[in-house]
């Protein structure tokens, strides 16, 4: 019965997500464009697939991975667990006593990003538009690494209590410098990958981690310090995607130089 309730709630919330979009699309299609949609049946079936697929995806996550992931975030940030790894007299905790939290943040950030449906969508599109120059997995891994570093750094910030905006501003400066140096083709896509990383899979787990940390580390308030992890997770993929493109460009230049010398 509990499961049925959950299924109903998730379907209802997915529908409220889709209905305004469908309304706008079909409204404009019939009132403004006034041309029949080609393959209407196929398109409608596609919408049904999207709604059902997304709902099943969310129900599955809530059944299987979220409870365990959230429980882990709480257990790993629990002072009792952190003390159990220290020997001798217990003094105040230092930032490096939270090493398993940072490692967990990195690993879970990377893993959840790889499964993020909206990132898969953008990667498919980028692969098609670039004529195959951007590989679906290359982009997904680059974004995943960016989110991983971002969230690990974000948990470090919560532990040390340094102000959020210092990190964000420093990140912006790096983004601006990279924008000048990176290949022009990648820039818009890199900016977009900041926004797509944080949706259905990543946000709930990361929020649990942030709130867990902010409520157990002494001197932090969940309300003030629990936020900000999402911001890290949307900033660092821009850096990692541009870095990936810069690396590929640099590597190709090197290979070209070599082959010239060889002639």
């Amino acid at each position, binding site marked *: 019965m509990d499961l049925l309730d959950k299924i109903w709630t998730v379907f209802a919330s997915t529908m409220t997500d889709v209905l305004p979009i469908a309304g706008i699309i079909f409204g404009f299609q019939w009132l403004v464009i006034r041309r029949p949609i080609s393959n209407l049946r196929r398109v409608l079936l596609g919408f049904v697939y999207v709604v059902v697929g997304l709902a099943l995806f969310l129900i599955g996550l809530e059944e*299987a991975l979220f409870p365990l992931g959230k429980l882990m975030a709480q257990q790993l940030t629990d002072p009792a667990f952190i003390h159990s790894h220290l020997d001798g007299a217990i003094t105040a905790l230092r930032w490096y006593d939270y090493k398993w939290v940072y490692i967990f943040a990195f690993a879970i950030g990377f893993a959840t990003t790889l499964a993020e449906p909206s990132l898969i969508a953008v990667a498919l599109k980028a692969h098609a538009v670039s004529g195959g120059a951007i590989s679906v997995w290359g982009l997904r891994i680059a974004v995943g690494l960016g989110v991983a570093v971002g969230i690990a750094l974000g948990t470090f910030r919560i532990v040390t209590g340094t102000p959020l905006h210092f990190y964000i501003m420093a990140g912006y400066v790096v983004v601006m410098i990279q924008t000048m140096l990176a290949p022009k083709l990648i820039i818009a896509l890199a900016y977009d990958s900041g926004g797509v990383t944080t949706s259905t899979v990543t946000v709930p787990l990361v929020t649990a981690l942030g709130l867990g940390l902010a409520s157990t580390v002494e001197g932090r308030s969940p309300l003030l310090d629990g936020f900000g992890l999402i911001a890290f997770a949307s900033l660092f993929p821009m850096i990692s995607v541009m870095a990936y493109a810069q690396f590929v460009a640099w590597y190709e230049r090197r290979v070209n130089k070599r082959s010239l010398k060889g002639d």
Partner: protein
Amino acid sequence: MRQRLTNLFFAIFGGIRDLLPIIFVIAFFQFFILQQPIPNMGQILLGTVLVTIGLSLFIRGLEMGLFPIGESMAYAFARKGNVWWLLAFAFALGFGTTVAEPALKAVADEAAKVAAEGQIIANTLSARDNYANGLRLTVALSVGLAIVVGVLRILKGWPIQILIIGGYLGVVVMTAFAPKEIIGIAYDSGGVTTSTITVPLVTALGVGLASSISGRNPMVDGFGLIALASLTPIIFVMGYGMLF
């Protein structure tokens, strides 16, 4: 029939592969670091099957429904040549998909709590509701504007970096003046506005527009709408925090 079965097999295999890293991370931390058994094995297996089927269906639906409709509308608007209808559509898409977004509702309620605790607003239910609703409308408005500006950018061929870096400077300036309590929420609100259904649609629209207008490159000009839609809420939420 055989072809179908192979397709199904590949779709499910793909779904499992996408999910494997999460399962691996959780199992590793559970067994080796926390040293605890995994509870409810059956439930977890069931959930994994659902996630796998769901992800495969979603991707199939993208290719059948969301991508083609986004692109065909972009072509139709470009052929029609009426910019105003295109901009109206862009605004409606940004505003309409954001205002009902459950993740945004959660963030807005949280923000109202913070504001009440910081004694920015009275700590009553109606004051908090007002604040949260105002915030939600503000964010939805900012996303609508972002898509409008982004579509204009594609039409005119403005470079994306000027808009984004200009926006960042706006964020930096606003951070200096905004109340401290709102900053974290404002930064996070940029990430929650773009839902899983909005992203493919908006991307298809941008790429479709850029490929149907001569002189635009779909790689350089087609992307960037999502980036703008995640940037403007930061500025607008801080502005909202300063005004109320």
